């Protein structure tokens, strides 16, 4: 077997082996008592509970509720983050003016706002989780937008002005193409943060969604189901991330000039 063949087969077998070993460990350990079975159900039971939920059609409603909150949070975040980010990145005046508020709000752990949000919006309805998600998602997008606009080639910008391009034309031919890769990265980062925060809000406060399902399973002692739901949340996050990466590749294919720059940046 040549090195190349060995490498190819290893690339498939090793990951598989890793997964199998971990699954086997978490299947056997509870059964033989190494891990307390009460709190550590065997993996097969966890997947069984998850399958039951899916079969009973009870998984989709919470997922939809979570995704609905997530989308709204992303929308609000975009509306705030992109203009503010552009203001920050476009000029020194903008950067200096906005710097302190942004830098003060940024390190606040979003979850610290939960009590204030409960106070303002109450624990019913989705306003709380949307606000939470929007807050956290604003920052990555904001910074990416500011990097994007700062990256506009000044010579190109002056050329566009010199040739009398109207604002809309400048936007389309100059600003947007430059900003697009940054916005794509920003969306990907923000989406992950927003999803996590939305689910967190659901879990802590009991707002309808995947997070609340985890909470109710936990309170009811239905631990298999609880773990299953946590896994589902992880898979949801992965799915969102993969989806956005695919979308990002698609959108950026239209901009070959950005491609070369991306070669070194995105794996």
């Amino acid at each position, binding site marked *: 077997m040549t*090195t*190349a063949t060995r490498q190819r087969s290893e690339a498939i077998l090793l990951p598989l082996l890793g997964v199998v070993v971990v699954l086997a460990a978490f299947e056997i350990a509870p059964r033989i008592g190494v891990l307390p079975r009460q709190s550590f159900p065997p993996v097969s039971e966890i997947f069984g509970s998850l399958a039951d939920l899916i079969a009973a059609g009870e998984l989709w409603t919470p997922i939809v509720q979570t995704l609905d909150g997530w989308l709204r949070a992303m929308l609000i975040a975009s509306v705030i983050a992109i203009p503010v980010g552009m203001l920050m990145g476009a000029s020194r005046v903008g950067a200096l003016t906005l710097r302190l508020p942004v830098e003060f709000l940024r390190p*606040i*752990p979003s979850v610290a706002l939960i009590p204030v949000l409960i106070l303002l919006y109450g624990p019913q309805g989705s306003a709380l989780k949307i606000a939470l998600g929007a807050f*956290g998602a604003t*920052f*990555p997008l904001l910074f990416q937008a500011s990097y994007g606009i700062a990256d506009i080639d000044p010579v190109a910008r002056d050329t566009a002005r010199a040739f009398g391009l109207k604002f809309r034309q400048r936007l389309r031919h100059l600003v947007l193409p430059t900003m697009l890769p940054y916005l794509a*990265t920003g969306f990907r980062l923000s989406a992950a*943060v927003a999803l996590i925060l939305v689910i967190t809000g659901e879990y802590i406060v009991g707002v309808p969604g995947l997070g609340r399902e985890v909470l109710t399973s936990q309170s009811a002692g239905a631990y298999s189901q609880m773990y299953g739901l946590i896994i589902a949340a992880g898979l949801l996050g992965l799915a969102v991330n993969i989806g956005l990466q695919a979308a990002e590749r698609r959108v950026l294919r239209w901009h070959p000039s950005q491609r070369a720059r991306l070669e070194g*940046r995105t794996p």
Partner: protein
Amino acid sequence: MADRRAGAIDRPQAGVLAIDAVSKAYETGAEPFLAIQDVTLKTEPGELMCIVGPSGCGKTTLLRCISGLMPATTGRVDFDGDEVTSPPRHMALVFQDYSRSLLPWMDIVGNVTLPLRAAGVPRKDRTELARLSLESVGLAGHEHKYPWQLSGGMQQRAAIARALAYEPSILLLDEPFASVDAQTRADLEDLLLDVWERKRLTVLLVTHDIDEAVYLASRVVVLSASPTHVKEVVPVDLPRPRDQITTKEMPEFAHLRARVFASIKAESSAGAGTPSAGAAAVPDDTSGSAAGRADGETSQKKPDVTSGTTREQE
């Protein structure tokens, strides 16, 4: 002409490298790529040997096999009688790219003494050896600077000082002056000659610069095109001490230079041809060493501080 002088320090080891029928095949890609084949060579103790060859020939591969950094596929390398399976204690290397071979997180004296620390040399001796070697390359007073605070030439001097402080009996240099400008290169060449003459080391220098090879060498070894073997060995009888101006004015210099050049040129045109797909996968520079690792890891990731987990939690 003997390279021995009165007053030469007696070394416990003579710095003799015996390379016997060494071959190296890389196994990336569908077929193994034979980089070097049947290289046989032996150094004279205390000589300054230069190795040249056409572009793409396995000069660097050869050096890595010789130094024990990479196992040869067949053949054997002996250093002072012992087989080389890993880098020998009394062999020191100087790499072409000083910015990657000097450690930017340590100052100059830290860089120079690191090999000595690993070798168990006591602190007082380490400090003294470092001081002496830095002085001999003209870097006295720069001990506590960081490599990136020095010019390219000075960084390469530091790398040479590090090698010298290690007290080797043979010094291997891989295109050491290729990354500096011509003026600095001339200075460094003369520095090398000075150090060589004073320390009575054996020196093996790989270069693509023919002038440099002839100027420095006692013997010039010309390698063939890929798969590389020794094409010919040209003795260089020019008088020592050598001088950048007078030596290079000599007709003998021009003859030797032309002879070496012709030899290489014949190799380049005579069917070295375009590098095969295997060669493309194994660039003949030191970053290609990834291909020679036992685990077959061939990817060379570019350092990218923004990659990795980019999920930002606020």
